[in-house]
């Protein structure tokens, strides 16, 4: 039982965005989809939840063609938490989470006691009871993301897709949100921007570059300096996380700070006795040395 992509290719506006994508998300695992900006992470996810139609290939859920299901039936199995957004017309948190019940309701169905209980439990699960009557647009980024997770929970699906759920969040909320979803009893496929964070939470990661998978497996095997160089074209140092042993990426400067390159300005003079920086030879103050 699993979610499986087979040889999936997607075109947008006549251009091939991703090619020949194949991997499996085993039930109960947390799988990360990694890769640089524009490498096709989001496109793959959107093909699974029907925003894009694959040019070729298949999406299988428990060995059945997911895209052949009626949209509402697919939505009962797979819920999505998108990047945080602003609503054009504001809903309260309670209303927004109740919208998660959409695939379970037919035309003219009213919200019944079960819907209300599920909605309330979902809001409690993400710890947002105190926000139930607030407008969604008045929430902070971290709060919004929690509410969107509650909506996905109310949807009652056993698979959760996360499209860069933490990209706009500060480090506390990044950890909090990923910890929250990792603690849920669902299978997770997430596009994640931050490689170290992905390594900390994912069972398996797949690395994309230019619309193609270049490697996949446990984070400890996939995230090597060579793989990051191949996908991102940049140099990193990789150390083991002191607590978990998972790979942690340390970015490197392209030139060493103590070895100025030919293009770089001369190093600023040290501050004078009053703590102010003297102007350089051309009479300008160094831009990064104004004392702020």
């Amino acid at each position, binding site marked *: 039982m699993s979610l499986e992509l087979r040889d999936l290719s997607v075109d947008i506006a006549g251009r091939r965005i991703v090619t020949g994508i194949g991997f499996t998300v085993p039930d109960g695992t947390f799988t990360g989809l990694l890769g640089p900006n524009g490498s096709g992470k989001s496109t793959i996810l959107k093909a699974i939840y029907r925003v894009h139609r694959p040019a070729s290939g298949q999406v299988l859920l428990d060995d059945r063609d997911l895209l052949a299901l009626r949209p509402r039936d697919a*939505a009962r199995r797979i819920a999505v938490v998108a990047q945080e957004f602003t609503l054009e017309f504001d809903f309260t948190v309670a209303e927004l989470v109740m919208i998660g019940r959409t695939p379970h309701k037919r035309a003219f169905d009213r919200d019944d006691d079960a819907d209300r209980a599920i909605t309330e439990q979902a809001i409690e699960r993400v710890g947002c009871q105190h926000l139930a009557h607030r407008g969604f*647009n008045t929430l902070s980024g971290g709060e919004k993301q929690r509410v969107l997770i509650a909506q996905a929970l109310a949807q009652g699906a056993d698979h959760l897709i996360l499209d860069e759920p933490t990209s706009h969040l500060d480090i506390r909320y990044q950890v909090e949100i990923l910890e929250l979803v990792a603690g849920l009893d669902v299978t997770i496929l997430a596009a994640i921007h931050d490689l170290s964070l992905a390594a900390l939470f994912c069972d398996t990661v797949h690395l994309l570059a230019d619309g193609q998978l270049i490697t996949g497996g446990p984070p400890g095997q996939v995230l090597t300096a060579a793989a990051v160089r191949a996908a991102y074209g940049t140099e990193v140092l990789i150390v083991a996380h002191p607590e978990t042993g998972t790979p942690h990426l340390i970015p490197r400067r392209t030139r060493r700070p103590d070895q100025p390159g030919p293009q770089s300005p001369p190093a600023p003079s040290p501050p004078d006795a009053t703590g102010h920086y003297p102007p350089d030879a051309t009479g300008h103050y160094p831009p990064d040395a104004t004392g702020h």
Partner: protein
Amino acid sequence: MTVAGSVRDSSTVLSRRLPLPIVLLACTALLLVSMVLGIAIGSVPLSPQAVLRVIADHLAGHPRDSVADAIVWEIRLPRVLLAALVGATLATAGTVVQVLVRNALADPFLLGVSSGASVGATAVLLFGAFASLGAWAVSAGSVLGALGAMGAVFLVSRQERALSPTQLILCGVVLSALFESVTSFLIFRGNPQATQAVLFWLLGSFGLATWPQLPIPAIVLAASMAYLLAQARSLNALALGAGPAAALGVDLHRLRRDLFIATSLMAGVAVAVSGVIGFVGLVVPHIVRLMVGSEHRRVLPVGMLFGASFMVLGDLLARVIVAPQEMPIGVITAFIGAPLLIVLIRRRPYLYGAAG
């Protein structure tokens, strides 16, 4: 905690808004009062009791032969009913267009329908097209114009078999401009006396309302409202954006196509019977969302009733404000609607995505 206990809690936890039946009752009362006032007040003032007596007599099947009867039944009642129908239709169409293109500034005429209808109506008024249809010629012309515009916008906005909101807005605006220049060209070529009639029509009026005009707008409104209420949950999902709606199991292509057809029909019929009446379709949905929130199972019925009341009262003002002349209704709706909307938006900035 027992299940029953938690359920009872949840009904209060989940909604602090006024219960929908109470809001609907209040809006219905407002509409009825507006309609009675709209019938009673005029160049020959009648008492509300007299108005109700005439209506009761007709409903009972033995109308009296009196002046009051003629004024109420032949002139003012059809006019008030038409105003209510058009107000309800424009408010509903506006609500849906704003969700369809996910833009708070959208109104029912955004998608080119009104300017297409104007071309048709102008052609009839100036050059006597469809003369064989007699009194129905202007309506027929505007319906054909609206359908033509709707088809053009639909075909031009389609991208890879799907309607995208941005394409809809752009194509609607561009084609509207094109149709408006066609109308201008027709006015330029037509004779000056007929131009007066065109201007009157473009500004909108219920002055020529008759009973036979009522059934078609009523049927279109009832059918659209039934469809929209059936889709209310999908509309909520669509309000979150295309991605979230797809993830919630909404068939985006079909929903957008059907919403486009429903709003174009509503706007086209409204324009055909009363001309181009601005602001109602833009302002009423916002007022209603500020009162009852954005959940469409509330916004749609409340908006329909409130839009009807708004238009009936607007038409009443249009008749009495410069009596015995009539102000174009579009002037009234703009004068009331614009300041009202600005006040409401400034009081609740978060509602319109100002949170950043």
